[in-house]
């Protein structure tokens, strides 16, 4: 981990308006949960639409997408990546530092509101399950989306396609897609810790853990290799 890179990356991230807009998600999540509870609904009623559909299926991956593509992709877009590339640093150090920032920011931004929502649901185990699930999801999503920012010029578009088409649409229609769905790993981890009835799972815990590891390590190694061969193209040739 390189603290200089991590600090600059974090400052760049927090300075972007797009990131600040993401803070609306946690406010919305907690607000709806408080409202549902005050109206007397049980967590088994409001949990699926609020915690699963909004918190896990939308907030977590979208925050991870904006942050994961932002830590490296924004520097690629504006050319500031050249300052870091022109240093005698192992490319693994650059990738791991940026990944560290992406995972931490995503895990805090999504894990804390999910934890609070779990408490509003009246269960500490649900809160802990959701927090751990958010951390697991932050690791896998961040590695995947950071890799996307090195593979394509439209990482946000492709990331959204993964979230909305692969995980949400195809995930409902074809059960086979679950094994490559980070959302399913998050649900499995959260369910195994909380034993909540409204959290339905499609993959086993060993599969969820193993696939999270494969996503995280595989995407990170690929990202390091891509950065080693990264071409900086000038405005003129």
């Amino acid at each position, binding site marked *: 981990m390189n603290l200089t890179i991590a600090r*600059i990356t974090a400052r760049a991230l927090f300075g972007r308006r797009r990131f600040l807009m993401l803070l609306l998600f946690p406010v919305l999540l907690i607000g709806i949960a408080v409202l549902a509870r005050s109206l007397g609904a049980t967590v088994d009623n409001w949990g699926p639409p609020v915690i699963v559909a909004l918190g896990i299926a939308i907030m977590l991956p979208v925050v991870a997408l904006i942050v994961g593509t932002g830590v490296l992709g924004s520097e690629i877009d504006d*050319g500031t990546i050249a*300052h870091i590339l*022109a*240093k*005698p640093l192992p490319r693994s150090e650059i990738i791991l530092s940026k990944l560290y920032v992406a995972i931490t920011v995503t895990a805090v931004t999504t894990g804390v509101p999910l934890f609070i929502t779990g408490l509003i649901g009246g269960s500490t185990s649900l809160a802990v399950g959701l927090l751990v699930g958010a951390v697991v999801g932050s690791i896998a999503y961040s590695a995947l989306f950071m890799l996307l920012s090195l593979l394509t010029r439209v990482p946000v578009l492709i990331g959204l396609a993964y979230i909305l088409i692969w995980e949400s649409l195809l995930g409902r229609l074809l059960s086979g897609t679950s094994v490559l769905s980070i959302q399913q790993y998050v649900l499995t981890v959260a369910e195994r810790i909380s034993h909540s009835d409204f959290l339905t799972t499609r993959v086993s815990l060993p599969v969820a853990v193993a696939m999270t590891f494969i996503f995280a390590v595989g995407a990170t190694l690929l990202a390091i290799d891509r950065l080693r061969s990264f071409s900086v*193209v000038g405005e003129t*040739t």
Partner: protein
Amino acid sequence: MTMTDTGPTSPAPSTMDNGSTVVLRSVSKWYGNVVAVNDITMSLGPGVTGLLGPNGAGKTTVLHMMAGFLAPSKGELTVLGQPAWRNPSIYSGLGIISERESVHGFLTGWEFVLASAKLHRLKDPEAAARRAIELVEMSDAQNRKLSTYSKGMRQRTRVAAALVHDPLVLLLDEPFNGMDPRQRMHMMSLLHTMGAQGRTVLFSSHILEEVEQVSGTVQVIVAGRLAASGDYRTIRRLMTNRPHVFTIRSSDDRRLAVALIGDPSVAGVEIDPTAGLTLKARDYGSFTRALPKIARAQGIRIQQLLPTDESLESVFSYLVAS
């Protein structure tokens, strides 16, 4: 001011060819069917070298390949005896200032240069950053954010960040862009000093006069090829002694045409009743000295004298042809 030894150990010069620090052997770069750089062989040693060529000639591509930012499609390219591509260790001895002047605007000048020193893992990054900022005369504004700097100030701060580790080789892409005359003079003097200290300094430019003032050696690139290479004066002579085309308006075009065609400096004359004379001179110097004498002797008044092919592109095209 001189740079001190806060930088990390640079790669051993013993691995280089005849003192050359940057060596290109038959280097080409293509994108699909488009050839950006075509079979360039050159070697650079200590001192300042200008990389001259019109816009789009391939200067940035060559510099980016030297900087390890692009892989050559063919050929071999080494910096300080090591391949530049996929080899971050070269940056211990290499400083780069790219043309794209993107910086993190939220950092102050001091933070930006200090971050560069830290990323180079210098023993005393604060001292190195302070020296580099003093060198480019940016100490007074070092606590302001980069987003508040003028283009020239940003450029100087980028130079400080590129010099902070005291590199043996410095690559600069169009470094004078956006600088006012004073900043330009300062940058030129800085490059001179760096070259005199035994560093290899390569800077690109599409402006002949910039190269003339800074460097004794030039590499001229036209359409991706190395068109000329060597001493600036020799290349300048090649450029000025080429045929030049002028349009002339005078009080008596026909009589002037007759008088001029007899002069050895003139290769041909055409008369156009509306546009005046179009004249092809064998070389610039002889013709511009002969014209006033001939006109005075004939009692003809010159109303207009316009060089018509002074674009750099035509100058470079001539170099390629010759």
